[in-house]
């Protein structure tokens, strides 16, 4: 059967693909002793999204969509997605979780623009969304950003990112064991399926749902 499918990517799409390829394949180092290249966005969406990893995840959307329009040519899209996933295994992908311990010591000095994010009556005594509060009760310090009780937004978007890589490339590379964070004792072994199973277990075992930042739960 001949499928009726007329897909031609326009100039802007092709231009974005080229830019993103150059961005994703420019070498940098996301380990703790490295530093992401400044073209990775850590500014947008402060205080909740202003972390490099959100640029990785957001960048995957157009790549997956474009590859679905040229399903007979996906090698460049696969390469870009592989670069995005690879960076998401580094320390810098979880730099919020790995540095924001306990209550925010600065929460008495938040700017007024945070008021829409803080429950009325708790101004000055409440951690703004985006402060991950690793170690806060009831969980204690948990250095593995995936095995942690909280940090839903980290592991949820990461499974999506790996899933898009697999969907576009067909490559099971990230479903084999890989090391994350890689910072001395804080090195953790995961695979795509293990992350997904772990996350599913967290959802099944918690009526309220998983904490995103610790003590902050999206209603289900």
């Amino acid at each position: 059967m001949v499928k009726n499918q007329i897909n031609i990517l326009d100039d802007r799409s092709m231009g974005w693909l080229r830019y993103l390829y150059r961005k994703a394949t420019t070498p940098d180092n996301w380990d703790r002793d490295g530093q992401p290249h400044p073209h990775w966005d850590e500014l947008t969406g402060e205080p909740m999204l202003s972390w490099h990893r959100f640029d990785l995840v957001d960048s995957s959307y157009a790549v997956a969509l474009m590859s679905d329009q040229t399903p007979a040519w996906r090698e460049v899209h696969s390469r870009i997605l592989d670069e995005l996933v690879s960076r998401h295994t580094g320390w810098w992908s979880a730099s919020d979780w790995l540095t924001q311990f306990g209550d925010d010591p600065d929460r008495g000095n938040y700017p007024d623009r945070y008021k829409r994010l803080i429950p009325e009556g708790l101004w000055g005594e409440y951690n703004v969304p985006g402060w991950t509060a690793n170690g806060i009760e009831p969980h204690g310090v948990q250095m593995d950003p995936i095995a942690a009780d909280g940090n839903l937004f980290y592991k949820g978007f990461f499974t999506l990112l790996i899933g898009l890589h697999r969907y576009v490339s067909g490559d099971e590379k990230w479903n084999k064991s890989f090391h994350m964070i890689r910072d001395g004792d804080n090195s953790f072994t995961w695979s795509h399926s293990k992350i997904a199973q772990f996350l599913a277990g967290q959802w099944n075992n918690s009526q309220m749902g998983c904490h995103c930042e610790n003590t902050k739960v999206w209603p289900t």
Partner: protein
Amino acid sequence: MGEAAWEMLLAGTNVLSGELPEIWKEPGNLTFLLQLAGEHANPDIKYKIWDVCDELLEPTWDYELGEFTLGLGLNEPHPRGQLNARIMAGWVCKRGAWSSIFRQPNFDKFSEPTVVGVDFPSVALRQAYWDGENLHLAVQPQNNAIHGKRTSFRITNLDHGRDWAIEGLDGTLSTMNFEGEDLVVEIEANDHPVVLKPNK
């Protein structure tokens, strides 16, 4: 539910009047609108929205590199990553295409003829799909200096027991031969659609 939310959002922006309220000109809000428009708006509505918003996006070309980004009026050394990424996801997204990845994923592509070994970024394929019998391609050059130059790539998953011919409406010349299981094609990078067909 998503469609209803989109309709409410669209009405709230009043963007179809041709004038975007100030609050929606903020880059984060603009990004939200344009990303959702890709998934939810029909093509006419989508392009009306883009017509209103385009100037605010500061579309930017590097013609030598063949790259397109959005400055968003931010005057920053690098295109703002999250905003560019989400806006461009909206740009490339046809209505329902994002949800289709999850509801109707295309797994046939893994066994269908596939192009590999493209000399990217010098050339790219703006069209590459298998219609069940023929492979449709269009080879886009990175810039004017490359336009018309010959390039080669391989096609995998093709029935090598058949004879294949490339047909271009413009008489595009191309050569090809099987190397092992793959068909090696040499073709001009001229942006013209061509079709790889089996000889009957």
